[in-house]
């Protein structure tokens, strides 16, 4: 099964956070958020942490990373 991917690369603040929040509110876990700036990585991680969910950051090697959010 392929998990839902939210591509937030190249978007300005706070759109990656808004998109992550939307996915969290929909409640379907797990999902992956793709971001490509350190600030977005921090912001999305902070949001996920505030919901007491687990996340894992994987560096894709092209300047972007995938944040996998799960219970």
């Amino acid at each position: 099964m392929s998990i839902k991917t939210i591509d937030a690369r190249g978007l300005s603040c706070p759109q990656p956070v808004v998109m992550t929040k939307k996915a969290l509110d929909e409640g379907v876990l797990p999902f992956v958020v793709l971001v490509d700036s350190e600030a977005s990585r921090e912001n999305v991680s902070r949001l996920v942490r505030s919901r007491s969910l687990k996340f894992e950051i994987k560096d894709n090697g092209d300047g972007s990373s995938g944040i996998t959010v799960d219970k």
Partner: protein
Amino acid sequence: MKYFFSTKLGIISSGLLIGAIAVLLQYWGNPPNMGICLACFLRDTAGALGLHRAAPVQYIRPEIIGMFGGAFLAALLFKDYRPTGGSSPLVRFFLGAFAMFGALVFLGCPWRALLRLAGGDGNAILGIGGLLLGILVGIAFLKRGYSLGKKSQLSKGVWWMLPAFWGALLLFVIFRVSFTEGGAIFFSTSGPGSLAAPLLLSLAAGLLIGIIAQRSRFCTVGAFRDAILVKDFHLLSGVLALVASAFVLNLFLGQFNPGFANQPIAHSDSLWNILGMSLAGLAFTLAGGCPGRQLFLSAEGDMDAGVFVMGMIFGAGLAHNFGIAASPKGVAFVGQAAVLVGIAFCLILGLTNLERGKKA
């Protein structure tokens, strides 16, 4: 160290430091309640270049150059530098110009609004209220999928352009360059533009703020936006720390003068203090961050943020050439009209750029 500034303690220390540096700059000679003001300082810089001819507000502010330089060095050092662009640059240019109209009607950007508050200027409460109003409208658009589109990675070869631009301005101010007899570069001999901390001190203070703010992502608009939008009080704690440290240091240095009337470089026309900052708050939110954050983002290689800053410089030129900028006497009719035009621009922009974010 790399991540210290992204922690809670990190952002609070950033706010405390920035507030203290700003108040010290005032103590060292910058205009009252104007230790750091992106709008005012870009306006002074525009004036120095002759883009407007308001003689009291012309000076290439070294703080701005330092803030860019510090953020640029920090971004390089911590591998945050990445040239990107192409997310509606022209729209961002106009947003920058209108944000400047709004800020100059209030007489200060969000940074100065906070410093004015910390200096006892009651009118700042209305300005900050207006800022919140603008941010709230911006959030309503963001929640409905407002987006200016994705930026893409640009060639690494563009990295030197903004450093060269600010570097040239640094040389102009150090050597007090004059290109033609009696022409630019202009330096105010009276008025706010003539009030300045010593050049090296201004530059060093800017550098320090640039480094701190790049690491901590300090943003005065993001602070309120994130608190309201996702109940994330991270950035807001930095902003509150700034006000607290500036307030305490102002008290200590005898720079705290509470009241509404006769505040330095301010007017007490409440309606236009609110509406001016509403326009600024909305424009900053639609562009993704406060003017400081735009400057720091441009230093990290975000060329769209760089275009926004250029838009602010352009807006400052028009604001003084057309008489849009307020004076301590108040806001002229043309200033009021410009704010309403700016708000209309932002509302139309917001309404016509919804849903695009969802397709991504």
